[in-house]
């Protein structure tokens, strides 16, 4: 296994931030850690990056405890990020890559191609403070990957990125995956994870809720979900036979069907009492799966469609 966490636990001031977490991250995939704010994503990532030490448990990189030069093989984009405002783009790229053990001579020829790729070719000798916020984000991303790391860790990558830049960076991430790199990222926006990840891990309140290949997770939950739009009061629906959990919005409901449910009989039963405008049998979204598994208050998560990303 490329990267694995075994029974990792971390407490802050008596409050458990990460509890007995086990993760297996294979090489060459895009792995998403998802969960609401405060679930323990950043703490997990900081422990992976060896910025904070776990209270107990172990973290292995390529099957061994992390060596001192581990940090040189990782590119890390923290959620709280920034750059030296007074340095030029060239200076800061060279400095940060030097801190990753790269000689300036090796870094220098790669700077301009990367700046060109993210549309900053004309700014190489400008100071960071002269860039717009979006440009600084792209520069920051370049400094994260300039030293050609095997593992790229991105904490809340897309927060604060505009849609155009998001597209650009998503393309680079997919290229990195093609080049055999492993990308680990965290997000509280499920839709992003759904579109990018090969594997996911859901965490809530510091505990793993479920993990695995995205396809497997979906299959495990089957096509047993119904999206329903009606006119009228749908409250009676939750007591119909074959209906499991219900997420109810004003005119819109999502029903989890029990394994033995007869969807036709269900449709007839509903249609007798209210007008059915739409009845779709669909794969559950990660959002639904998460709500289902974590048994959390949906208000802690960004609702599907609430944010339009990638």
């Amino acid at each position: 296994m490329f990267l694995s966490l075994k029974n990792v636990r971390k407490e802050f001031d008596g409050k458990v931030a990460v509890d007995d977490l086990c993760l297996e991250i294979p090489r060459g995939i895009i792995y998403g850690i998802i969960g609401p704010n405060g679930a323990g994503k950043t703490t997990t990532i900081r422990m992976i990056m060896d910025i904070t030490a776990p209270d107990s448990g172990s973290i292995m990189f390529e099957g061994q405890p992390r060596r001192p030069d581990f940090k040189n093989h990782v590119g890390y984009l923290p959620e709280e990020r920034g750059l030296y405002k007074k340095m030029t783009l060239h200076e800061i790229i060279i400095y940060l890559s030097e801190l990753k053990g790269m000689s300036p001579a090796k870094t220098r020829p790669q700077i301009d191609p990367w700046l060109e790729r993210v549309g900053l070719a004309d700014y190489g000798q400008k100071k960071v403070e002269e860039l717009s916020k979006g440009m600084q984000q792209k520069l920051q991303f370049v400094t994260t990957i300039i030293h050609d790391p095997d593992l790229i860790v991105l904490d809340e990558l897309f927060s604060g990125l505009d849609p155009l830049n998001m597209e650009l960076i998503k393309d680079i991430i997919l290229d990195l995956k093609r080049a055999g790199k492993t990308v680990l990222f965290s997000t509280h926006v499920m839709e992003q994870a759904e579109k990018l990840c090969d594997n996911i891990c859901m965490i809530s309140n510091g505990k793993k809720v479920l993990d695995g290949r995205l396809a497997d997770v979906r299959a495990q939950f089957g096509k047993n979900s119904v999206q329903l739009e009606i006119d009228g009061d749908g409250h009676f629906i939750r007591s119909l036979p074959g209906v499991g959990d219900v997420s109810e919005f004003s005119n819109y409901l999502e029903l989890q069907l029990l394994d033995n449910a007869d969807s036709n009989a269900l449709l007839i039963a509903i249609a007798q009492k209210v007008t059915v405008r739409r009845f779709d049998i669909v794969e559950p979204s990660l959002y639904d799966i998460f709500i289902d598994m974590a048994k959390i208050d949906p208000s802690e998560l960004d609702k599907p469609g609430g944010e339009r990303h990638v």
Partner: protein
Amino acid sequence: MSKMLVVLKREYLQVVKSKSFLIGIILAPLFMVAVVILPMWLAGAKSSTGEKVSIIDQSGAGIGRKFIEAISEYKLEGSDKPYYILKDLIEIEPGDDVSFNFFKDSLRTQIVDQQLKYFLVIRPEAHLLDSNIYLVTNSDNFVSLNRFERKISNVLSTMRLNASDVNISIDSVLNITRRIDLVVQDAKGEAIPFQIKYFSAIIFAGIIMGMILSYGQLVMRSVIEEKNSRIMEVLVSSVSPFQLMLGKVLGLGAATFTQIAVWVAMGSLLYSQKTTLDISPSIDRILFNPVIVVFFGLFLISGYILFSTLFALIGSMVNTEKEAQGYVMPISLVLIAPFIVGISIVQDPNSTLAIVLSMIPIMAPTMMMMRLVFIVPTLSEYSLTSGIIGEAILSLTIVVVTIVFTVWLTAKIFRVGILMYGKRPTLPEIIRWVKH
């Protein structure tokens, strides 16, 4: 290790390339020359032109003439020309107060207009009543005042002896009763004037304090800047917090030493010209004393590391410079303390208070330096285990041990503090980080 050097290099260049660094290098010595060296040099300097003297003599006994004769023995430095130039000798009848007032006013005007440096007034019966002789001048050249006092005393003594019936040669009486000027020497038979020691002590302790305060605070500012710009977490994903802290402390320390090295080079240049500049041997013995210079270097390094580590600690705990001021204030006070209690130190540098204060780690660098200057040591005269050098070594050891402790403590707090945004940690929290 090599990553620490990368941080060190950046911090160093960041400072050395700045304009304020260059200005500091040039301005500080100029300032020091202006404030300290120049007055000392001027006081010891010999005037190249003489001073003009006039005399109003109303005694009718020729006191003025005799005085002029007496002061004519003073010559200009390296020349036969007299130091004092007689402008006017005005002899007036004892009863002629109209003329006296006229000349007195006219000479006063000349003094004000700086055409004249001194005029001596000799009123009638001057040989009987001392207050009938006085000197009018705007100068406070104590060398000249001293000479005048001595010569006029001689003239009057001679006159009084002549008038008395003492049967003894006047010269031998003057010789017997001549005034002695005490030459002050220290225990080693050398004389270093108090002012020179005091100024030197202020210079050495002042440089140590100034460097620690300015560069130590740079360390703090640099940490706060990295927290504020949120680059901190990016940095600690590449280097350990300890490497980062050490790189900063040593990088800015290297900048301090660059600055001092330039000053030392300037000083050496000055020193090579010491014969032409006429530097007094006293200054020579303190400022260019190898023992003092070596301890100065050691106390500067150790003091800087001690305080800059504390400043790094403060930087890691706060979010803004304003917040930091509350912590910086007590540290500054501790550094300035030696200058406040300084006067009691210099009066008796071997007092118990002085010795105790110079052993307290946060005061030792400045305090011990002041004592060292006041007890000017030479290598041959003191053992390494006793006397002032022994004490300096003990004090240095205490500082180094304290550094080991503060570096350990700071490293513990730093690695947690730098990732805390927005909220200032409470004391119980800090204690928990240290225990962890």
